[in-house]
């Protein structure tokens, strides 16, 4: 179906937008999953999102997605309109997530160039059941029926004019930013029908006509009403509020009423309460409307704060009304939402970003070539203006570089949110009650890294839920809180991103791991169990085929998890640390190099080489006197600072750099601290502090101890980045 047209561009847009919508939706849902029910904003958001997806899927002719989103939209429409108080919240959350998963899965297929051929039948049936169970207990609200596509719905209200009846012409202008005006209009009609003897409105078809929203937005919404009620009461029902910009109610004669919307000419009645401004506004409005609608002569109602939502008490018998609820026609509204998103974000091919990055690097180099050009060094040259212009150029180039760097950095928030979802799913499946906490989710990491950590992180989180956290009974028996807790945290330390998954579950079972390892002959048979340090034992679980969980569950326990995690992490040059306290829980920390991340670094000179070290690990810079340096017989040196001795690493000797400073009094001591351990680096001199982009040392060169990457300095030279933690190892 879809490929009959050239929809490629549209498809990309469709996928991109809907993915974003679903992501946001999921966040909202998970945020409120522990609440008793969704708040109004959330309900509206879900409703809108589903509506948008339904609309765009309809255009793209992905019928199954359309059906599913439509069903969910129905449910939320019902919830929004009827406020049933019996919503099984978790059930609802699950339904929303199921639908969003289904749509995501279908979109994945589409993205791979396949057909969106998944069947929505089951989900739809589930949703139907859910909706009817909701409704079952609230017969009163039956009027709001399912949101089915039917022929244009009509209000038919038997005219039963009595002598007491008044006829009104009501004109409503919605605020321009209001979305789904037709739904708002529908609500008003819904509210009015309680008191209406006869009611006509234009546009007639609010629900299934796609254009009614536009029409209302442009020309206002017009109602002809026959009622016993007075004007005051109408004002009560239709209040100006956040959505209604202006309401004008005018009484008219029965004959004018009969003439419908073409009739005009009743005398202007000015409401006494209205102030001058309002009248003026109304006048202006009328002028505006001149060529638009047949605007009648209306009374201006003073703007009043508060909700416009009319009470919805249905008194059967008052009127005959066939309402099918708002259907397709809310399209307009979300079209606007889309527009807003488009202006704030565009998706860019990462390759183009890389290209841009390279070009800027090139620019910086050629900049320095120009500015330090030999030709400029002719004596007696007047260069004042040149330097001024050059200064400006340097500034722009620096800004440019900053921008491109920041563009590549993405906060971990989205990835962490995904984990939130996983915790929720898994814990529900396993019947465990787990609290999920995120710390440092705004830590920014290069886009490429994010792509690589998602999978391993997912495994770790699943493991924590499945193996780590005990069941509620076990927890209570152990005297712990019934609720388990998983904490996901991220930080940058010594040039690496540390992402840890911590649980307060049972921790790893040392004995069990050793027993299993013995069984698989993974341990040296001559070594005693007790001779293995804890860390080494815990690392065993990362070996292929190792799973200590007795039962293979749906989620984990096949023993593929951990070794995949580790190989994935290693593939990007990271390591996995496992720590555990029996009975208290365990913590798994991924330490991943930042690769292209930006760090704040201290640039130092040693001989002809330039080194950079992350500012975060530097404790202080010291000039020391020769007498405070002590050399041990094995050649190791340490320096006494404030009564403490710190070992010295002479970078020049360490890396066999030529022409480096050897006199300790001429150079500079840089004290670094990693994991509470301090070491002094001896360098020739400091160059300065600057933001640097970490680039990996090309794979071709095998790993050098203590170096974590390299970077390009402003003048195009390359500096090597020291890995503080790596220097301290050994």
């Amino acid at each position, binding site marked *: 179906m879809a490929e009959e047209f050239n929809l490629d561009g549209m498809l990309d847009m469709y996928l991109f937008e809907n993915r974003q919508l679903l992501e946001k939706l999921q966040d909202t849902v998970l945020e409120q999953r522990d609440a008793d029910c969704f708040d109004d904003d959330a309900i509206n958001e879900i409703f809108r999102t589903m509506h948008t997806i339904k609309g765009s899927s309809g255009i793209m002719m992905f019928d199954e997605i359309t059906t599913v989103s439509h069903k969910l939209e129905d449910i939320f429409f019902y919830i929004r309109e009827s406020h049933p108080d019996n919503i099984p919240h978790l059930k609802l959350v699950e339904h929303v997530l199921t639908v969003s998963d289904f749509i995501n899965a279908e979109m994945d297929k589409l993205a791979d160039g396949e057909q969106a051929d998944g069947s929505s039948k089951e989900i739809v049936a589930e949703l139907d059941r859910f909706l009817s169970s909701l409704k079952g207990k609230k017969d009163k609200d039956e009027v709001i029926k399912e949101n089915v596509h039917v022929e244009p719905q009509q209000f038919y209200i038997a005219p039963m004019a009595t002598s007491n009846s008044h006829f009104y012409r009501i004109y409503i202008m919605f605020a321009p930013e209001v979305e789904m005006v037709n739904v708002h209009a529908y609500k008003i009609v819904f509210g009015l029908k309680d008191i209406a003897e006869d009611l006509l409105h234009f546009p007639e078809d609010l629900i299934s006509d796609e254009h009614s929203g536009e029409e209302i937005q442009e020309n206002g919404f017009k109602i002809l009403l026959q009622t016993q009620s007075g004007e005051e009461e109408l004002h009560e029902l239709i209040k100006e509020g956040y959505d209604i910009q202006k309401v004008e109610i005018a009484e008219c004669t029965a004959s004018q009423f009969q003439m419908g919307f073409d009739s005009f000419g009743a005398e202007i009645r000015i409401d006494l309460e209205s102030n001058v401004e309002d009248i003026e506004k109304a006048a202006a409005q009328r002028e505006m409307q001149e060529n638009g609608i047949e605007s009648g002569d209306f009374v201006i109602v003073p703007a009043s704060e508060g909700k416009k939502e009319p009470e919805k008490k249905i008194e059967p018998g008052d009127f005959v009304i066939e309402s099918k609820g708002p259907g397709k026609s809310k399209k307009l509204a979300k079209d606007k939402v889309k527009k807003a998103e488009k202006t704030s974000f565009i998706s860019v091919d990462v390759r183009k970003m890389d290209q841009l*990055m*390279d*070009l*800027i*690097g*090139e620019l*910086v*180099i050629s900049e320095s070539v120009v500015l330090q050009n030999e030709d400029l060094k002719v004596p007696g040259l007047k260069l004042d203006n040149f330097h001024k212009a050059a200064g400006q150029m340097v500034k722009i180039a620096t800004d440019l570089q900053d921008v491109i760097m920041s563009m590549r950095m993405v906060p971990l928030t989205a990835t962490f949110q995904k984990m939130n979802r996983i915790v929720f799913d898994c814990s529900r499946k396993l019947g465990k009650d787990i609290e999920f906490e995120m710390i440092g989710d705004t830590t920014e990491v290069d886009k490429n890294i994010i792509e690589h950590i998602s999978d391993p992180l997912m495994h770790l989180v699943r493991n924590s839920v499945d193996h780590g956290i005990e069941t509620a009974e076990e927890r209570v028996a152990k005297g712990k809180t019934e609720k388990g807790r998983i904490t996901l945290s991220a930080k940058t330390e010594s040039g690496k991103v540390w992402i840890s998954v911590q649980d307060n579950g049972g921790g790893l079972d040392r004995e069990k791991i050793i027993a299993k390892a013995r069984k698989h002959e993974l341990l040296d048979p001559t070594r005693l169990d007790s001779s293995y340090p804890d860390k080494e034992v815990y690392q065993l679980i990362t070996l292929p085929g190792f799973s200590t969980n007795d039962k293979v569950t749906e989620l984990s326990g096949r023993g593929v998890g951990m070794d995949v995690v580790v190989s994935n992490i290693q593939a990007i040059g990271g390591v996995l640390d496992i720590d555990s306290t029996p009975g208290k829980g365990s913590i798994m920390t991924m330490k991943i190099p930042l690769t292209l991340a930006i760090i704040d670094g201290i640039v130092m000179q040693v001989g*002809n*080489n*330039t080194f950079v070290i992350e500012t975060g690990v530097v404790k202080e810079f010291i000039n020391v006197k020769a007498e405070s340096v002590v050399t041990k017989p094995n050649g190791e040196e340490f320096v006494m600072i404030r009564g403490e001795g710190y070992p010295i690493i002479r970078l020049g000797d*360490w*890396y*066999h*750099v030529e022409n480096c400073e050897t006199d300790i009094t001429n150079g500079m001591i840089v004290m670094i601290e990693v994991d509470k351990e301090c070491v002094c680096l001896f360098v020739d001199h400091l160059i300065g502090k600057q933001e640097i982009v970490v*680039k990996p*040392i*090309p*794979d*071709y*060169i*095998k790993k*050098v*101890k203590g*170096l974590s990457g*390299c970077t*390009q300095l402003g003048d*195009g*030279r*390359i*500096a*090597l980045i020291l890995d503080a933690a790596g220097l301290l190892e050994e």
Partner: protein
Amino acid sequence: MEEQKEVKKQKYVTFMSGKECFGLKIEYVNEIIVLQEITVIPETEDYIKGLINLRGKIIPVIDVRLRFRQEPFEYNDRTCIIVINVNSTVVGLIVEKIAEVVEISEENLMPSPTIAKQVKSQQDRYVYAIGKVGDSVKLLLDPDKLLHDDMVILEQVSGESEADDTEE
């Protein structure tokens, strides 16, 4: 049509190293640049001279002479870096002098003659064939071997090979 010709004739970038002329298939060659400032990386093999900044891209450079375990040479203004891309590994080769780009047809290619096949010398393993151009002979290099092949060997016999270095 063109394709048919290409099958028979291949273009090679040739360069001088010592007194011999070596050739690299042109498809591997990204570009040829003049010698740049090289950032030394400590603790690496001697033939890996370090890193250069190629328009924002950091690439390693190796000295071909040292790679062949020949005498090091002084870098001068004729010294060039041939940037090659072998299976997306980008490496710069420091060579004494670029010669020219030549076309060698297939019939002029022949396996490189060796004395004893089983004891292939270090240098020889990089040369997969020789090509005749007129009277001269170009030693055609296998870039993949040039970059990677003996990495393993080097590590295995790192002690010995270092000794070799000093002997040569």
